[in-house]
């Protein structure tokens, strides 16, 4: 595909996805709204903000993670972020009880989760990548093992706790856009914006990282430094999104692969905005369907995977013709 055609195509797709986002967002804000508009809009608007933050952070960090690991079938959740979130929540309910947990200051919980997830991944990075070996594979492998450990410990604790407590816990573990407060949103937005700016400056180097470590070094990329920064950016974004709504990284892979298919071989400055817009379309659309068609019966994750999965299969079939 020649570069001019690619930019044209990218602009067209971005325009389309942005239009869809806006239509769906208006739909989410207004469909079936009864009563005081001020109240309805502030309630639903807050939800929209949360969705936008997640739709921004997850595809963004997934693309960066692919570039960093030189592998397009992974998601950052392989490092055990989701599992760690589940473990922290489970530990909270196990040690303090659901009543105590529910009266904790949500900002404190948010900050705590953020710190635990960031500390975990940076510790992995320092111990394994910087100190021991410069192989990203080792880092990923240990990340997977930690994820399994966290999941097993959380599973054990979940079996030990009271079934009533477990129901409360389960509710907290499903990704949901309804619960984030404006303080949490502001904090997540700040982290996501700063890390986005940081990544933006690094886009040319990230493009060159597609050549692999040796290729990137040969054309003058300070690979180890950019890898470290990228890892930190991915960590911050995933941790912020997960602390905001719960385990949500599942939809990143889907969205990002849709983007790769639509815009093969594009540089980061095109891939990332398009994947963010597609992510927004999918998440807002899923929330509209969940609320207006399914009457909240289910989780947003189910809807995302159902629609996204079908879209992806259609795209695969279409591209074979």
């Amino acid at each position: 595909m020649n570069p001019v055609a690619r930019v044209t195509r990218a602009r067209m797709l971005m325009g389309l996805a942005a239009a869809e986002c806006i239509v769906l967002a208006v739909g989410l804000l207004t469909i079936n709204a009864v009563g005081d508009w001020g109240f309805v809009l502030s309630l639903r608007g807050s939800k929209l903000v949360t969705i936008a933050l997640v739709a921004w952070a997850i595809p963004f960090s997934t693309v960066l993670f692919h570039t960093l690991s030189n592998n397009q079938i992974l998601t950052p959740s392989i490092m055990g972020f989701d599992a760690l979130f589940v473990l922290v929540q489970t530990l909270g309910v196990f040690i303090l009880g659901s009543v105590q947990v529910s009266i904790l200051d949500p900002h404190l919980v948010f900050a705590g989760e953020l710190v635990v997830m960031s500390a975990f991944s940076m510790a992995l990075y320092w111990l394994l990548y910087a100190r021991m070996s410069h192989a990203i594979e080792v880092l990923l492998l240990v990340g997977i093992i930690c994820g399994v450990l966290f999941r097993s410990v959380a599973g054990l604790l979940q079996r030990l706790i009271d079934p009533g407590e477990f129901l409360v816990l389960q509710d907290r573990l499903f990704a949901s856009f309804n619960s984030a407060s404006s303080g949490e949103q502001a904090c997540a937005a700040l982290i996501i914006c700063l890390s986005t700016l940081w990544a933006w400056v690094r886009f040319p180097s990230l493009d060159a990282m597609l050549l692999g470590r040796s290729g990137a070094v040969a054309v003058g990329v300070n690979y180890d430094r950019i890898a470290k920064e990228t890892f930190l950016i991915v960590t911050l974004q995933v941790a912020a999104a997960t602390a905001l709504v719960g385990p949500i990284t599942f939809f990143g892979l889907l969205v990002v692969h849709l983007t790769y298919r639509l815009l093969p071989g594009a540089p980061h400055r095109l891939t990332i905005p398009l994947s963010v817009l597609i992510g927004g379309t999918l998440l807002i659309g899923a929330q509209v369907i969940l609320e207006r068609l399914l009457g909240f019966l289910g989780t947003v994750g189910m809807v995302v995977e159902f629609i996204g999965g079908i879209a992806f299969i259609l795209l695969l079939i279409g591209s074979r013709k």
Partner: protein
Amino acid sequence: MIEIENLRKSYAGLPVVDIPALTMPQGGVTAIIGPNGAGKSTLLSLIGRLETPGGGGVFLDGENVRSFRSTDLAKRLAMLKQDNSLTARLTVADLVAFGRFPHCNGRPTDRDRAKVSEALELVRMTELKDRFLDELSGGQRQRAFIAMVLAQDTEYALFDEPLNSLDISHAVAVMRLLHSVARTMGKTIVVVLHDLNFVARYADHVIAMKAGRVVETAPASHAIREDLLKQLYDTDVAVSTRDGRTFVDVYG
């Protein structure tokens, strides 16, 4: 000038490169020859600072390559590895454009675009420039990577077995190209080669390596001789001259 001092590298305690002192010939095509496992690729990786030396260092005009800023070194020294598999889908033009990265940091000017077109033209890939690499044959891919190194337009260029997966005519074309680039633009080109006939025809200098050590550094006309090659490869080699050209018969 590339100089090597007390350069050592070991993997799992086994030394793979151990060179007390070596000055790379300046200008022209220098071929590094030697059997598998002689440390040729590792030597190139150490020069291109893809690997950290266990001791000693590589000096470019007196300065250690490891103390250069990444882009400053990449403006002066380019390198193509043996194995160039990519996970991302890139077009030929995208790939070659990465050769301009150290010069423009991802914001290509007209001059950068001109260099890219020129490099594509040199390897005769202009018509394939919008194709994805995974839609090309191995030889075409190899030429695209060579074009990337040419686009980088450096004083020094290192190629690790650039003739891999090229057919006869393209192998000859690539060697001719490297030879003429070295001659006309005054560049220093270092190539790891296995085909001794290409060495005899196109190399100006030869560095012979065995078991991590440099066995001989000599002009190609002097290095392509039976006793050295036999000792190097532990196999029978017959060197003959016909019409003033040197041929190496390695087929036993």
